[in-house]
Structures are given as C-alpha cells and as structure tokens.
C-alpha cells in the first residue's frame, strides 16, 4: 500500500435510493486526483476493528473531474460485510486509502454505437462511460432495470442529463428489460452488461445468438462467478518445491498469499487476468471469465483467484 495508493477523506455522503448511498472522496493532502477513463474502478482499503476491508467500486463521475471521486454502494445483507460497513459505519471526515483508477471494463475504441444494460447497482460504471461518450460526441443508449422508480438510484440525474439516451424498466410497473433490445442494432454496435451473474450470462448468450462477435460483447462482474463448491486440493510449486494445501472454501490465491508467495492479483473475481500463472501439470477447473475457450482447453495457464484443480493436485510454475 506504499506508493501506489492515495489517502482520501470522505467529504460527503448522499442517499441515492433507500438502499444506495454515494460517497464523495477528496485527496487527504488537498491535491487533485488522477483523471480516469469511463468504466474505471478503484480499490478501497478501509481499516476496521475486524481487519482491513478491501473492495472495488466503479467511479461514477465525469472522468475529467479531478477535485473529487464519487462511488456508489448498495447495502447488501448477503454481502461479505463491505457494503454494510460502508453504509453503517463510514462517516464524513473518515480517512481511507484507495488505489489509482484501474479499468477492467473499458469502452471499445472501434465501436460505432454503444448499448449499455444495467441491472440495479450495475448502473455505476455506465455513469462515467456515458459522460465520457457524451463529451466525445459518440452515440450510445442506456437501458436500466430497477424494481421501481423509488428504488432506482440516479434516476433523476440520468433523466436530466441523458434524457434521450436513457430507458428505464421498472418491474413493479411490469416493464421488463429484455435481450431483444440488442436484436436490431446497426453493424458495429458493442454491447455492455453490468448486473448479477445470471443477468450477464443471459445477455451474453443472447448477444452471441444474435451474431455479435465475441469482441463486441463486454461485461463486468461484481462478485466471483458461482461454479459450485470449493473443494480442497493441493498445489506443488515447481521453483521452491513447496507443497501447499488449498483448504475447502479457500481460494488458491489466498493460500499463496498466506504462505508469503509473491503472487500477482488485482480483481480477485476472475475478470482481469492479473493473477494468471503457468501450470506445468494437472487438470484445471477453470472458473473465470477472462481466459478464452482455447486457452482453457490448452490448460497451460490458470487464474489463481477463482480457478481450482479438477482433482488431486496441480504443479505451478511459481
């Protein structure tokens, strides 16, 4: 956390909906914050009495605003504790560390038209992406599903800034957002999804069925994909000749880090590829959305944050 983090102060907290709060962060030393690209997120490091809470949140403001950053968080009772802590304990004046902006969900450069699909809190990356495109005069449309107008964070903001581009779908009003919206789009359209894993799967499959090239389909996950139980397995590290037990319920990355192995990582949900390592032997149970089908089949690399051994053990080039 030395040179690559920035100390910030919570300057303002705003209720965006009954379940969503936004937080305005300014640099603790008063200097300006780095500009970023639409779709970027920051990692927040909050020191609590239960330990360090490390979470990723999309930046929601215009990417050229350098006086402050804004993130928006939905309080989730099923969460691992991050969103509850942010909602119930963080107050104005609190200090924390954040990473520099990182972008694992960038806008396509070559797209002729951008179509965004947000479900619930999945709206957050699109707020900055829309600002980015609007400024550059690029064409886009935003489809946003929420239970109701009252539970729809940033509803008034979107309606006033992007009235022509934004389309709302409130399930209480029986208006459903559907994959058919991707059907009749011009050639060169890129589609982007952010929401639950089930929503992303449904939209990605539909886009493929409609004939979108794989490179025109973009999505960002908030939680690791669910591929079933996390069974125990063993890894052998080829360089140090160590054998490590990855316990049931633990990830390989966690195991490597607790044994002080210098393993790279970033998103921890199988989306960015930072933790990729070479595998010399063993059958891999790939659980990421990063590697291509060919790479998965070849079985020479794996992402340690989510993927596991099919059975027995793996030999890693570490």
């Amino acid at each position, binding site marked *: 956390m030395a*040179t*690559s*983090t*920035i100390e910030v102060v919570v300057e303002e907290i705003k209720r965006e909906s009954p379940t969503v709060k936004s937080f305005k962060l300014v640099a603790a030393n008063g200097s300006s914050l*780095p*500009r*970023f*690209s639409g779709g*970027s997120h920051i990692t927040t490091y909050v020191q609590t009495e239960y330990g360090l809470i490390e979470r990723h949140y999309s930046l929601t403001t215009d*990417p*050229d605003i350098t006086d402050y950053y804004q993130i928006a968080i939905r309080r989730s009772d099923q969460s691992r504790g991050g969103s509850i802590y942010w909602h119930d304990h963080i107050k104005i004046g609190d200090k924390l560390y954040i*990473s*520099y*902006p*990182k*972008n694992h969900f*960038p806008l*396509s*450069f*070559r797209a002729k038209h951008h179509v965004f699909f947000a479900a619930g809190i999945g709206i957050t990356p699109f707020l900055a992406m829309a600002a980015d495109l609007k400024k550059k005069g690029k064409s886009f449309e935003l489809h946003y599903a929420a239970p109701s107008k009252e539970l729809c964070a940033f509803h008034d903001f979107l309606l006033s800034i992007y009235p022509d581009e934004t389309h709302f779908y409130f399930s209480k009003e029986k208006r459903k957002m559907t994959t058919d919206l991707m059907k009749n789009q011009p050639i060169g359209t890129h589609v982007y999804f952010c929401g639950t894993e089930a929503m992303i799967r449904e939209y990605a499959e539909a886009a493929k069925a409609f004939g979108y090239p794989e*490179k025109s389909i973009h999505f960002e996950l908030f939680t690791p994909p669910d591929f079933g139980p996390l069974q125990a397995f063993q890894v052998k590290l080829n360089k140090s000749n160590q054998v490590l037990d990855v316990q049931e319920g633990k990830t390989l990355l966690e195991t490597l880090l607790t044994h002080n192995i210098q393993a790279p990582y*970033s998103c921890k949900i199988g989306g*960015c*590829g*930072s933790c*990729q390592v070479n595998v010399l032997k063993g059958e891999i149970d790939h659980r990421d959305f990063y590697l291509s089908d060919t790479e998965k089949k070849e079985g020479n690399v794996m992402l340690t944050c989510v993927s596991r051994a099919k059975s027995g053990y793996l030999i890693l080039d570490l």
Partner: protein
Amino acid sequence: MINNSKIISHSPLIERFPFPFKGDSYRYSNNSEALEPPFLLDITPEYFKEIEQKRHLLKTRKEQCYQSFSHSLEGQWEILEMIINEMTSLYPNYFSLKKNKNHWTFCNHLLKEEQSFIFGNSSSLPYEPLDFIGRHIQEDLIYIAQRDGDLYMDAGQLCFPANWSIAFNLGMTYTEFHSPVPYFSDSGLAEKVRNFLLRIEAGKPWTRLNWTLTVEPILDTFPETFDEWGAKKEKVTSENAGQLVHLRVEDQRLFRLPRSNGILFSIHTHLISLDELRKNEEWINRFYRVLTDLPDYIAQYKGFISYKDKIISYLEKIIKTKEGVIK
C-alpha cells in the same frame, strides 16, 4: 524545512551511467522492474546540448522524428500534464507552472522560455502537446494506445532512436513493431510481454534497461540516415575501439495513463565510450564476458556482428594488461 528539489548532478559519467548487465550473460527476457521512485524525468549535464539537438532534428526532419494520429490528442494532453507536474514538483528551481483554471503558463527557467496555453485546446500551443513537452526534456516519448484489447503505437517524438523510426512504426500493434526482433517475436515472449503491458496499472510504473553499441557518440541513429552512421562501423579496429565504440543504454520507463487508458513509454538514451567504461573495472570485465557469451543472432540484430571480434580483441588486450599490472 527540507529542500526536496533536485538539481543536475555534475558527477562524472562513469559514476552515473546506467550499466545494464546484472550477470555475465545476456538474453532477451521481460526484464522489467518496478520503477522506484516512480518518475520519468532524469536531467543530466547533457541537457542543453541534447535539447538543442532534438529541436534541430525536429526543425529539419520533422516527419522522421514526430508522428501522431488525431485520436491520440487526449492521451497527449494527459502526457503533457503528467510531465509538467513532475517537472515542477521534482525540479521547482528549473520549471514552474501558473494555473488559472484551464489557462496555464509554463516556464522553463533553464532555457529562459515561457509558454501560455489553454489546457485541452491544441490550437493554443505552437506544437501538438506531446511534441511541445518533448522539446523540454531529454527523454524520447512514445504514446501506446490501448484499444479493444491490443496496444498500438499512436504517437511519438523519437529523436534518438537505436535504428528504428516512428515514421515507420506509427499505427502498428505491439507484436507488429517487435516482429524484427529475433527469438523475442517467434518464441511467444512478445505476446507474454504484451499481456504484461496490457495490465500495468496507474501508480505502478515499470522500468528496464536496453542496450546496443554505436560507433562514435551519435544519438540520432535513424534507419533513414543509416548511410551516414552505419558506414562508420567499418572504421573500427582493435586499436581504436576504445574511442570509437560506445555502449548505448536506453533507460526505458512505462506508465499507465489513467485518463486515456494508454501507456507512456519513455526512453532516455545514454552513451559511454569503452575507454570511459574502463574506469570501472568490474563493468568492463563483465561487458567482456557478456560479449563473448552473446549468441550471433543478438549481435546481428543489434548491428555489431561485423566488428564484434575487434571489440573482443581490444577488451582482451586491456584486461590482460590490467592483470599483468596486478601480478
């Protein structure tokens, strides 16, 4: 109060030269390391001479040294902002900036120059932003855009190239512009390094040293002027190698640019004659061992296979004399 501002170091070249060899053998690899402290600039006593030469090249051979695509302007402004911030915070005695919202006035006190402009408005500068700021620093600057999952050379000011040219490389992908490098391009290493670059993060820059040899202290070894500097290789003998042959080291640094999501690649080129390098006995001995171990395909690509034997016999002579003296 502690004064943190840096000044130009006037220590002899041999004491500040970035010697590139960590061991007795050299092969292509991803030898990048985390850059600490995380800055781009290095101002050396050669500043005035090199800036003058850079500007002369840009005046007389602009197309050869500066190329850009119009879609690189966002990245170029980001580079200008990053470098000016660094110049004024690391070297406040040499550079200053006055900001009134978007109206900026930049002062180079070393050159006694002042430029006012509107940030983000390219018509308010005499040159494109990358071309402008490059004229105030010794480093060559290459803007690598990250677009749709690949890396493209989208702009660059390159005045001191080791036999490559931005005019030729503009618009190529990372794997395309590395395709002439033997082994690196056909072993899968180029893809590995590209994948590493695709993931470098803002706030965590990287550095590596690259090297070659140049006959006479010539910084502007362009492929376009090979007839001028390439012919000099024929003059090298085991007698004059110490004066003529220079170890050429590129201090390369890589920065993620968070606004454009591109990468800034900077190159600071240093030259030292072998006679000068002899002042560090460990270095000249190691250089000898690296050369004798070097496979031909590397010497061929780096362009000194034709006179490698002359350098080796020069080095053997001086190393033997030295040993003779010690005994």
